[in-house]
């Protein structure tokens, strides 16, 4: 008896969720560019995951030299050509995407959650010392340019991917704190929040169950658009030598290596650079599409 009730309850809840997703997909697909962006992104993600299996020369991503095949232009054997040391650029680019995506995921994973929570608490307690403390700390972090701070941190510690990611995460959370602070402080005066307060719901409930769900959409959109920026930041750090270290195939690192041989051996720089552009563009298009999904226009 109890099982029956629970089951119908669960079924109904799931059915409702599915309908919501279907409607969201409909709105997303109205915009062909967003769909293209999503397709490209999916391809990139899949390629990155299955890199060892789908690239022609997976071993070129590890320490490898073959000077006889060095500096070859794009051909049917080496689609993007080879670099100075003889490694296939195409395979390295695909492996390079692994680093880029990892940076994006880790940074946002590390930075978004604390930022959102702090912004939520500050927004709900607007006008009190809690808000003051949180937001002033946020202001301090926001005042420092991300690149400079990341530079400083990676210069102090050993330059590697892990430190680079932490450095960027450290500069990223304040933006989310600000965003959610603005949202939470305006949502605070909504009737449904007032209702929950009058009922006697705990502050935790109000912040995380009433206010937070209404912040979801802008945060999701921002995260998607941020992925592109974070990836670019990571590539920049690698480019100046503070991120992914050679011989690892970071996209920024590859651009730096190939830059020395411009314009003659253009393939060494252009292809990794293009790869960066494409992944950022894909994220931006998906982000735009998400924004459309979340902005509901009532007829």
């Amino acid at each position, binding site marked *: 008896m109890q099982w029956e009730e629970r089951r119908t309850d669960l079924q109904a809840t799931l059915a409702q969720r599915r309908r919501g997703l279907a409607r969201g997909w409909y*709105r997303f697909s109205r915009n062909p560019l967003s769909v293209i962006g999503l397709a490209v992104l999916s391809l990139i993600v899949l390629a990155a995951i299955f890199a060892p299996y789908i690239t022609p020369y997976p071993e070129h991503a590890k320490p490898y030299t073959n000077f006889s095949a060095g500096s070859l232009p794009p051909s049917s054997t080496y689609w993007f050509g080879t670099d100075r040391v003889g490694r296939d650029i195409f395979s390295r680019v695909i492996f390079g995407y692994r680093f880029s995506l990892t940076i994006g995921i880790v940074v946002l994973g590390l930075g978004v959650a604390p930022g959102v929570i702090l912004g939520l608490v500050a927004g709900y307690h607007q006008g009190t010392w809690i808000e003051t403390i949180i937001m002033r700390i946020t202001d301090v972090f926001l005042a420092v340019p991300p690149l400079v701070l990341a530079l400083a941190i990676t210069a102090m510690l050993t330059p590697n991917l892990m430190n680079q990611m932490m450095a960027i995460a450290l500069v990223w959370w304040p933006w989310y704190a600000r965003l959610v602070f603005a949202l939470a402080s305006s949502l605070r005066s909504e009737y449904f929040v007032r209702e929950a307060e009058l009922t006697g719901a705990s502050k935790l409930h109000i912040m995380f169950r009433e206010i937070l769900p209404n912040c979801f959409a802008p945060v999701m959109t921002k995260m998607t658009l941020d992925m592109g920026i974070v990836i670019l930041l990571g590539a920049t750090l690698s480019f100046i030598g503070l991120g992914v270290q050679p011989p690892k195939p970071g996209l920024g690192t590859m651009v730096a290596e190939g830059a020395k041989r411009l314009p003659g051996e253009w393939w060494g720089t252009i292809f990794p650079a293009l790869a960066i552009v494409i992944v950022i563009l894909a994220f931006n298009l998906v982000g735009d599409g998400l924004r459309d999904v979340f902005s509901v226009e009532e*007829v």
Partner: protein
Amino acid sequence: MDGLLAIKDLHVGFRIFEGRLHVLNGVLLDVREGERVGLVGETGCGKTTTVKSVLRVLPTPPAVVLGGEIVYRGRDVLKMSRRQMTALRRHELTAIFQDPLQSLNPVFTIGTQLRDIVKDSAIGQGRRLSRREVEARCIQALQETGMPDPERIMTNYPVQLSGGMRQRICIAEALSTNARLLLADEPTTNLDVTIQDQILRKLDELVDEKGASVVMITHSMGVVRDLTQRVNIMYAGSIVEAGGTRVLLEAPKHPYTRGLMASVPKLTGEGISEGIPGRIPNYLDPPSGCRFHPRCEHRMEICDQESPPFYEIGDGHRAACYLYQEAS
């Protein structure tokens, strides 16, 4: 009185995720010169869509005109070019909407906005006014709506004024163009009762003076009774009953109108009816025939087969209901 505006069998739809909403379902409405006509209906009946169609300000995706004509002084508005439409909106038509804060630009003073309108309408009539003339016209327009201290108001921003004053400014703006047809969409719904009373009286006076026609859209029967000579009752995208206001309100004929009148709380204190059972139809899949039939207690066989035409009941009083088929 000659015919000024005639909406003939207007069908308008909207394209959305789930399909197409067939909202306006053959709207028939006419307004004569110098006449005050009410358009009464509840949320979602299509009255704002109708007004926006006349002004051609519906966003055309997702809206789409499926058929019909809107004839203004002999010409079909729906077929007009953009230039013709602009000229029409400038000189012939004018509108007041429900929320004056949305109609007034918050970052400009009242004076700036009013002067723009006065100058623009003068240019349209082929005249150029000096600065003093423009100023005088503005002050006059404000005075006509009963604003105290118009000179000071000209320097204020919309947020500094009360709701009633803002709406008076919107009325001043609307009437300063000397348009022939005023479309007023719930102009006093958000205002206090005493202020509403003042403003409606003033509107009445001004419209009388200028000889303009008014289409007063509202969900309040009381407002329509005080202000209009004829009234159209709208339900689910079409007019279900039309006629002289007092007559219609005292003795409504269409079942929907009857239900509506019964639901209005009365000062006589006889209690409130349970309202009308059911909901407004889903425009994705509206009921066949008469759109009100699922909720109607006088429903007959024919009602779900074909939309009833208007049947004449009395002096200019007509209802779109098969109950009155023999009477006409």
